[in-house]
């Protein structure tokens, strides 16, 4: 199985007529079994089509046209309009929202995440590439065109969670080359506030029978790794975890931001060194190089329990 999405998942693309959204729609339609993209929304463009997908002015029109609840939405609208688009999706009953947009002010993100939690919806992102279930479906730009995504991702036992969209593919490709396929790979976004953190996705992977181990990509900044370490310890997780930490050089440069909006060392707990120590305390191995990840994972999978 997989987490979050499967071959039956229906979704819309908000902002579907934008250049990147047109490409993303094509990619999702082409990949695996072909995603069920049941509509697109761009205000004022009712009646158009994007690669055969009907375009609507409102999410409500898309839901009415579909004739029942729609599972998800990929949001690609500009930062100033993202909050409204996400509110619109949530208030029309959509439960899984992938926010691709970068540079959304934090206040807006906090409001979106709060509304999602009140309504029982889940947000992935912002500033992410989405979710992929290898050979089955992808929701978002993750992995790129279908033929490129097929090169990097194969089906298998590893769940991948990454703060960087590109590194989700790099790590999955490395796993694939070593014969370790992926159950689901999730690009969770690089902003300071995101809808779903490592610790929030772990229970889903924990409950997924296909998943036997987790690989994460992480960076300095924020408290997500500490939360993951805590979750693993408190829940006695069955899943071995291997992590890769980029941006170690940033420990010497507090207050400077690199890579992603959320990647900045502001206090002691933010540093790569501190995070590596916390992850290690929870039994999570931090690989020195990406190419070592498969070997470490294989040895952990061979071991009887997550010691």
């Amino acid at each position, binding site marked *: 199985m997989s987490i979050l999405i499967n071959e039956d998942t229906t979704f819309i693309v908000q902002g579907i007529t934008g250049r990147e959204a047109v490409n993303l729609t094509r990619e999702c339609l082409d990949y695996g079994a072909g995603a069920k993209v049941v509509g697109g929304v761009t205000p004022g463009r009712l009646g158009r089509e994007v690669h055969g997908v009907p375009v609507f002015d409102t999410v409500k029109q898309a839901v009415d046209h579909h004739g029942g609840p729609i599972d998800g939405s990929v949001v690609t609208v500009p930062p100033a309009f993202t909050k409204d688009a996400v509110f619109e999706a949530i208030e029309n009953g959509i439960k899984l929202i992938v926010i691709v947009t970068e540079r959304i002010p934090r206040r807006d993100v906090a409001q979106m995440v709060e509304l999602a939690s009140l309504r029982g919806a889940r947000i992935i992102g912002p500033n992410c590439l989405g979710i992929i279930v290898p050979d089955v479906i992808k929701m978002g730009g993750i992995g790129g065109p279908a033929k490129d995504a097929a090169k990097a991702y194969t089906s298998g036992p590893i769940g991948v969670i990454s703060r960087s969209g590109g590194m989700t593919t790099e790590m999955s490709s490395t796993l694939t080359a070593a014969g370790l396929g992926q159950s689901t790979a999730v690009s969770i976004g690089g902003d300071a506030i995101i809808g779903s953190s490592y610790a929030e996705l772990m229970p889903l992977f924990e409950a997924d029978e296909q998943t036997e181990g987790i690989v994460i990509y992480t960076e300095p900044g924020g408290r997500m790794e500490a939360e993951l370490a805590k979750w693993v310890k408190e829940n006695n997780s069955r899943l071995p975890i291997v992590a890769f930490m980029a941006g170690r050089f940033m420990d010497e440069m507090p*207050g400077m931001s690199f890579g992603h909006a959320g990647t900045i060392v502001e206090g002691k707990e933010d540093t790569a060194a501190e995070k590596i120590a916390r992850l290690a305390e929870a039994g999570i191995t931090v690989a020195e190089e990406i190419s070592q990840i498969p070997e470490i994972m294989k040895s952990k999978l061979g071991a009887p329990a997550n010691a």
Partner: protein
Amino acid sequence: MLFSDMGGIDIEEVAETHPDHVGRRHFSNLLPISDFAAKECIASVGVTGSRLNRLTPILTRLARLFVERDMTLAEINPLCELEDGTFVALDAHMDMENEARPRQKALLHELGVGHEETRQAREATEFELAGEAVDAQDHRGVAGNVTEFDGDLGLVIGAGGGSLTLFDAVRKYGGKPANYCEIGGNPSVEKACGLAKLVLSKPGVDKIAVMMSIVSNTRVDIVARGVIKACLELNMDPAEKISIFRIPGAWEEEGFKILDHYGVRYADRTTSMHEAAKLAVEAS
């Protein structure tokens, strides 16, 4: 929100040494900010009586300011009580996030905060400003976020996470980077060219390493054209100046044809990012 009755020192220090003197409370970003949350937060460290009633609106208004002005931090410290029981802020610290600048223009103007003042911890160098100019020349993708270092190994790297990984990798193998940068979001040939030219022209830089994590949106052939064009425009031989080109992914077949034509050494995804970084260090 946080409240402590031990002002004048760093709040992180108070939290560590006297946790019972720090009140914490989450407040909603959707509901209008009202007094009760601040009152609960302050009362939780044992403040009561008229002090509680005078402090509550101060914290409420600070929280409101924090939200309305897109702050990442809004701190009054210390807050002093006068003999007549009123309170005065002796110092305050506010950080606004960059993403919100467009909608806070009026306030920034009023405070005299200019466009060039960023949240980075040190002032931008001339080299970094030139990098910003390259990135600003058109709206297609990113070829920027240039940060200057004092080494001699020129880096044309991407994307966000890839750059962090590669920068670490170069240093791990003993390389001394001349710069940090990020390519992403499928920049134009001209932009990739501008970035490569900037790095190649930096005093002390002999060669550049062009490396990224597997790309899916950015195109291998477009970046290849950009960096080769940079060499040619500077009357340099791409085969000599580009020590290694490691960008696998979208349009790689086309990109490799270009690199073959100019005799540039390249690697596909079977060469790991760390291996590529090692090759770059060895060649410099």
